[in-house]
């Protein structure tokens, strides 16, 4: 069975090579087929592996010695256990749907850009698979960097537009800052434990001092913050919407942003050892959730709303991790992948129909023109708001229950966040689909439902969003939590203390009720008169994203640029150049002077000779204290 393991990443790699190299020569359809086909193939192999893991447990395949420096041995090995096989399924599954979707969405690109797009997409899936399948932190880091690179390439896909490039650069820099934290943590681990393999690290984890554990986990969390866009390093995700919508769906909703959660879930043994970090993760997750939810309320670009909603949902997942509900967080990752991908693809088909118009104030009343998109988008909104029986309800509820068990205040804020989520989602839904059409005439004239290649993935994802929840129905609602059972082999779920049955019901009831109220209020508010003009007062603050970008610019970007300019102008120009040219001039000058001594008269020469002899004898006569003097000098 384990011969198949290497096939999973190999297929996307082959796809990348073929599309990448042949992008000019292959036809569009062929590229599309190759691109999606390789992902489908690895999805099938992942399925096989999933059932193998389900039946006869985890498997670690070691291929060759990647790094071999005396005592440090890092092997290129894959580890397929419950957690990674689940992620494999999510990545390849959702990935495949998005690939099919983008064959249609990117139809009007020229052939070679089309090929380049699919090559980057395949490369992304390859690195994501590497990240997830790696058996030690170093292989994970390779994947970690690979996805960072691909996100940079794909965000800046339309490189002719400068601010897309700027957005790509911003994303890359922010990720790199996070990667630095991750790298330091890995070095720390290797320094302390001499190995990076998960198995060995978790086995010897107890030998680490509390300070080490906290430091490593915090640094790993910094990496996660960079990659999964948490509070300080989140500003790149909204700007990343510059990339094509399927890219946003795949990378900035389903897979890459979940890397951080996967990493923390994978090293749950370390995290559960340090309570300090757990609190930090929980608090940052919660703050991010609320903060970005508030911003989403006032955004007018369809993709920006979804981006901020992703940041807030990620906040929830980190909240889940912070309070120890690892399975809950992973469950939320899965369900979030489904409905967020669905919402993004829906938004994509709306944009596709509206000829790249993204401002919801210029849309409205699309219900009639895009029936399938409207229906699937509605399902997505309901799922994300956490209305039973949709999948969002089960995963979010599990996190909120664990949060309540940990600390009721977390639960309260969490529910407020959920309410806001419901509100802005249905604000978005109402403004775009309900009410009257506010676009230009010819836009209205061209409004048509997206081709089947786009609608089928929407329908599949909609189905998954609905069905996805039943995997983890909690006991109190009658189901037995298969996912929990499946993942328990990897994740040590330490649910604090089981609160009584009826409190559970009460909590669920309250959260669902609040969400429902928010939905109804949003629908009838925005279907009749959507907000068209710019917001004033506090709304304005929200619309401008609390001016966080401007804050970063003034504090970090401007100061570093100023420093760089200083170094360039002052240090570089006169100190270093000056020194180098100075030496050249010195040699030239002294050479001219020395030349004059060579006067040509023998008299001079003998004079110099005699003087030299006098000096030599002088040196010889009082050589002792001269030597002491010199040896003191040197």
């Amino acid at each position: 069975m384990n011969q198949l393991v290497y096939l999973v990443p190999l297929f996307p790699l082959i796809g990348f090579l073929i599309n990448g190299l042949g992008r000019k020569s292959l036809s569009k359809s062929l590229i599309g087929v190759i691109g999606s086909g390789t992902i489908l193939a690895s999805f099938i192999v992942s399925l096989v592996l999933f059932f193998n893991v389900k039946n006869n447990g985890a498997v670690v395949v070691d291929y060759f010695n990647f790094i071999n420096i005396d005592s440090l041995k890092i092997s290129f090995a894959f580890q397929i256990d419950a957690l990674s096989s689940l992620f494999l399924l999510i990545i390849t599954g959702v990935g495949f749907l998005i690939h099919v979707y983008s064959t249609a969405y990117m139809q009007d690109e020229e052939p070679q850009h089309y090929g380049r797009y699919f090559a980057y997409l395949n490369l992304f899936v390859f690195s994501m698979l590497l990240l997830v399948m790696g058996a030690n932190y170093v292989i994970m880091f390779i994947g970690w960097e690979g996805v960072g690179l691909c996100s940079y390439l794909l965000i800046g896909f339309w490189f002719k537009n400068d601010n897309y490039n700027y957005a790509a650069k911003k994303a890359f820099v922010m990720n790199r800052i996070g990667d630095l934290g991750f790298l330091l943590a890995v070095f720390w681990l290797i320094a302390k434990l001499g190995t990076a393999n998960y198995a060995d690290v978790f086995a010897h984890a107890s030998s680490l001092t509390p300070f080490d554990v906290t430091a490593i986990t915090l640094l790993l969390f910094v990496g996660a913050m960079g990659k999964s866009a948490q509070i300080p390093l989140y500003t790149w995700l909204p700007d990343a919407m510059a990339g094509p919508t399927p890219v946003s769906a795949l990378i900035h909703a389903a897979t890459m942003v979940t890397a951080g959660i996967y990493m923390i879930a994978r090293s749950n043994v370390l995290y559960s050892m340090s309570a300090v970090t757990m609190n930090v993760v929980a608090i940052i997750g919660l703050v991010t959730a609320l903060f970005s939810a508030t911003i989403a309320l006032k955004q007018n670009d369809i993709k920006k709303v979804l981006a901020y909603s992703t940041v807030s949902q990620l906040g929830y997942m980190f909240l889940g991790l912070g309070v120890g509900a690892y399975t809950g967080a992973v469950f939320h990752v899965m369900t979030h992948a489904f409905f967020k991908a669905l919402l993004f693809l829906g938004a994509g088909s709306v944009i596709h129909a509206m000829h790249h118009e993204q401002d919801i104030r210029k849309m409205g009343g699309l219900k009639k023109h895009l029936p399938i998109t409207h229906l699937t988008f509605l399902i997505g909104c309901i799922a994300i708001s956490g209305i039973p029986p949709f999948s969002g309800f089960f995963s979010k509820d599990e996190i909120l229950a664990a949060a309540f068990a940990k600390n009721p205040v977390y639960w309260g804020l969490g529910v407020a966040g959920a309410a806001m989520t419901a509100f802005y989602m249905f604000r978005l839904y109402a403004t775009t689909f309900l009410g009257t059409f506010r676009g230009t005439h010819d836009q209205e004239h061209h409004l048509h439902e997206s081709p089947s290649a786009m609608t089928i993935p929407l329908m599949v994802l909609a189905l998954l969003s609905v069905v996805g929840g039943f995997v983890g129905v909690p006991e109190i609602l009658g189901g037995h939590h298969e996912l929990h059972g499946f993942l328990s082999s990897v994740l040590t779920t330490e649910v604090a203390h089981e609160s009584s049955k009826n409190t559970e019901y009460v909590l669920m009831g309250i959260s669902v009720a609040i969400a429902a109220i928010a939905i109804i209020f949003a629908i009838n508010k925005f279907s009749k008169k959507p907000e068209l003009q710019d917001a004033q007062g506090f709304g304005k603050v929200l619309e401008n994203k609390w001016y966080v970008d401007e804050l970063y610019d003034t504090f970090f970007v401007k100061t570093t640029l100023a420093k760089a300019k200083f170094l360039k102008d002052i240090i570089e120009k006169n100190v270093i150049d000056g020194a180098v040219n100075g030496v050249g001039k010195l040699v030239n000058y002294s050479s001219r002077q020395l030349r004059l001594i060579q006067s040509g008269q023998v008299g001079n020469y003998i004079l110099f000779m005699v003087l030299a002899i006098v000096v030599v004898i002088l040196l010889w006569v009082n050589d002792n204290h001269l030597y002491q003097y010199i040896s003191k000098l040197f």
Partner: protein
Amino acid sequence: MSAIQILFWFLSGLALVSAIMVLISKNPVHSVLWLVMVFFAISGHYILMNAQFLAIVNLIVYAGAIMVLFLFVIMLMNLDKTSDPQKNWWMKLAGVISGGCLLMEMATLVRQAAEMKEKTVMMKEGSIGLIGNLGKLLFSDYVVPFEISSVLFLSAMVGAVVIGKKN
């Protein structure tokens, strides 16, 4: 101050004075003649040190052959008083100063030297200078340098031809 010491100081004085006169005299012929006087003084020294053969050889070879050569060269170059280039005075001054320093340095060093502490010139001892011993030594121990110096003469001969002969 026995007769020998008087003679020694007289000869040294003579040598020094005539050496200086060689430098100072304007007319090259005069300086050559003063040089001859220096050689006489040094031969005197040799005799004092019981090296009669060396004294005579010095007189014959130096005063005889080499001085004649110098005179011919001077005649050849038709040097007379006015023609030699007037060196600027500071060059002469520098020359005197540096020469003086060297002289002073050497003199003080040699004077302090342990071996030379109280001895004056070893007068009239040592028989190495006598022609008999010298000959014996030359043809027994120092044969090799004797033969090799012949090479020196050959190269001098070739040199004379190369430079002297007008082809």
